């Protein structure tokens, strides 16, 4: 994306977020860097426990004790959020950056009407009067495909279906026209037909408002349709990133390759569907060297000694691997 602006909307630099639990320090995010330009959609992918949600919460300053952002910078248009005070963060939350949580069923307060929960955002972040706020809420609900919106504002979350609740959560996230929306698996809780509907809707909304989005998912098929570029996380580290097309067509990290190969494909027979062998190591005591080496078909002696760092690969890709794949090469 050619942009006249030189500073990206959000730049994450070497972010470390740890949880100091009784059973040891969980290095949930351990040196993550990426950037998102204005109007871009970035996919953040990886298996469960990779640290995707923690990255999202870190950006919003929502890491609670025993968790802590240990180091790194989160630059929103050049301004660091890690060192920003709680008051500044509160202005940013909802207005400049908003988040759609992983589980839509539990994101809404069961005791407040949907209207009140939407109105709260506008009361916090706009100077609109009560009537104007209501009109805005109704328009936003309608734009996410909820009919009879005026009436539904008075309803409670339990009177909504899962899909509708998710739409409400998305509507809330977009209400104050934030510059960045962090969507944490916005569709995993929904059935497949609604999934694609909602994704299309979010995409359209974002294009419409000129916003950017971090789309968090473990589903590479979803991001490959939605994202401009992709960052792959494994055990709290970025293992690969680059433009969507380059990364999907010719990934250079064996882990990315594994993820892509496990996407069900209608042209493939089911028995050829592969899975990455083994499972994610215990994040509390990671092995020395490359975190992925125990599951990696290409691992060699050096992988157990030295942790690979992100290095440029072909085209737009950056990967952290001692033995990256060449274009066209199988894992």
């Amino acid at each position: 994306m050619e942009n006249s602006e030189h500073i990206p909307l959000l730049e994450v630099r070497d972010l470390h977020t740890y949880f100091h639990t009784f059973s040891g320090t969980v290095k949930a995010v351990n040196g993550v860097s990426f950037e998102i330009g204005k109007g871009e959609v970035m996919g953040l992918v990886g298996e469960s426990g990779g640290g995707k949600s923690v990255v999202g919460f870190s950006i919003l300053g929502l890491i609670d004790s025993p968790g802590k952002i240990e180091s790194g910078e989160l630059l929103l248009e050049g301004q660091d959020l890690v060192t920003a005070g709680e008051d500044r963060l509160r202005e940013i939350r909802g207005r400049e950056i908003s988040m759609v949580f992983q589980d839509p069923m539990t994101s809404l307060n069961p005791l407040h009407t949907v209207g009140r929960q939407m109105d709260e955002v506008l009361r916090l972040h706009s100077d609109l009067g009560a009537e104007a706020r209501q009109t805005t809420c109704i328009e936003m609900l309608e734009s996410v495909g909820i009919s009879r919106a005026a009436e539904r504002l008075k309803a409670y979350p339990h009177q909504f279906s899962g899909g509708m609740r998710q739409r409400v959560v998305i509507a809330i996230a977009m209400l104050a026209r934030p510059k960045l929306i962090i969507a944490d698996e916005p569709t995993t809780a929904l059935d497949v037909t609604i999934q694609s509907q909602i994704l299309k809707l979010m995409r359209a909304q974002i294009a419409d408002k000129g916003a950017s989005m971090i789309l968090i998912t473990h589903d590479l098929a979803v991001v490959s349709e939605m994202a401009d570029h992709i960052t792959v996380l494994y055990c709290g580290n970025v293992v690969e990133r680059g433009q969507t097309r380059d990364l999907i067509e010719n990934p250079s990290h064996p882990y990315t390759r594994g993820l892509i190969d496990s996407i069900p494909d209608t042209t493939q027979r089911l028995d050829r569907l592969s899975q990455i062998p083994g499972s994610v190591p215990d994040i509390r005591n990671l092995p020395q060297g490359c975190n992925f080496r125990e599951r990696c078909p290409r691992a060699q002696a050096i992988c157990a000694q030295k942790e690979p760092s992100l290095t440029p690969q072909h085209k737009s890709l950056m990967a952290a691997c001692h033995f990256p794949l060449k274009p066209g090469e199988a894992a």
Partner: protein
Amino acid sequence: MLGYLLKRLIQMTLVLWVVSVIVFIMMSFTGDPVFMVVPIDATDLEIEQARRLLGLDQSVLVQYWKFMTSLLHGDFGRSYVFRQPAMTLILERLPATVEMVVVAMVLAVAVAIPLGVYAGANPNGRISRTIMAGSLMGISLPGFWVGMVLIYLFAVTWGIFPSSGRGDTAEVLGLRISLVTRDGWHHIALPAITLSLGTMAILLRMTRAGMMEVSRQDFMKFARAKGATRRDVLYKHGLKNALIPVITIFGLQLGDLIAFATITETIFSWPGMGKLLIDSIYRADRPVIVVYLMLVALIFVVINFLVDIVYTLIDPRITLK
């Protein structure tokens, strides 16, 4: 809604009836009230006469039948001791008790809720630990002891508050209330504080537990992600969700305090119905005891009903069925 109300009304009546039966049976096992009425040197004949006068010569069943039929005519029986309608005796003293209980409850809630919310939101802080240690004392220290310590300090040593009795009253809507006079507040302070401490501690702990539970919920974090202030997140989103068990306990405590304000009333010579109950028990004044117990049962049942209504006001998922 109307059907619900009717159902509840029938339920309440049933409960009250069962209470009346139990109370009557229990009464018939306690000491013979005749000896409390007649002079010590009364002859057998005089005793027999007194017994007949009080209707105690008949079987429990007949006594109960008489009690119920006159009750349905609005007659709750007469005190053996005061020769006055038992209901009048109790109602005269009800405002004093209710007044003290209400002040104690308001005090308990006003202290317990904010401290409970704070302790629940910051469970590991030093202030929270201090609050919780204090609440443990509130639960474990017996009321009579606290009352006596307060009297010793505030009345005897420093002379800030009077040690006993009710202050000046004024007539409000036909009731004699002491909360409208300075002197009244001066007198009610110590007994109300004494009465409130236990409830305060329980409500505080319930609030804290509820807030800790609620704080883990996604919608709390989502509210923060919307940019809500900490105060709004805690009180508008958190507290409301933590409130159901707190209100349940509140209702039970309110009934308890009305029923068992007796100790506090005795310590502070507070002219409430608790003190009347104690006196009546000493004198085996059965009609007063029976009416007192029935009234307390009624209060419990009504509070219970109100609590159920409050549930539905708080939580739209709860419906009256």
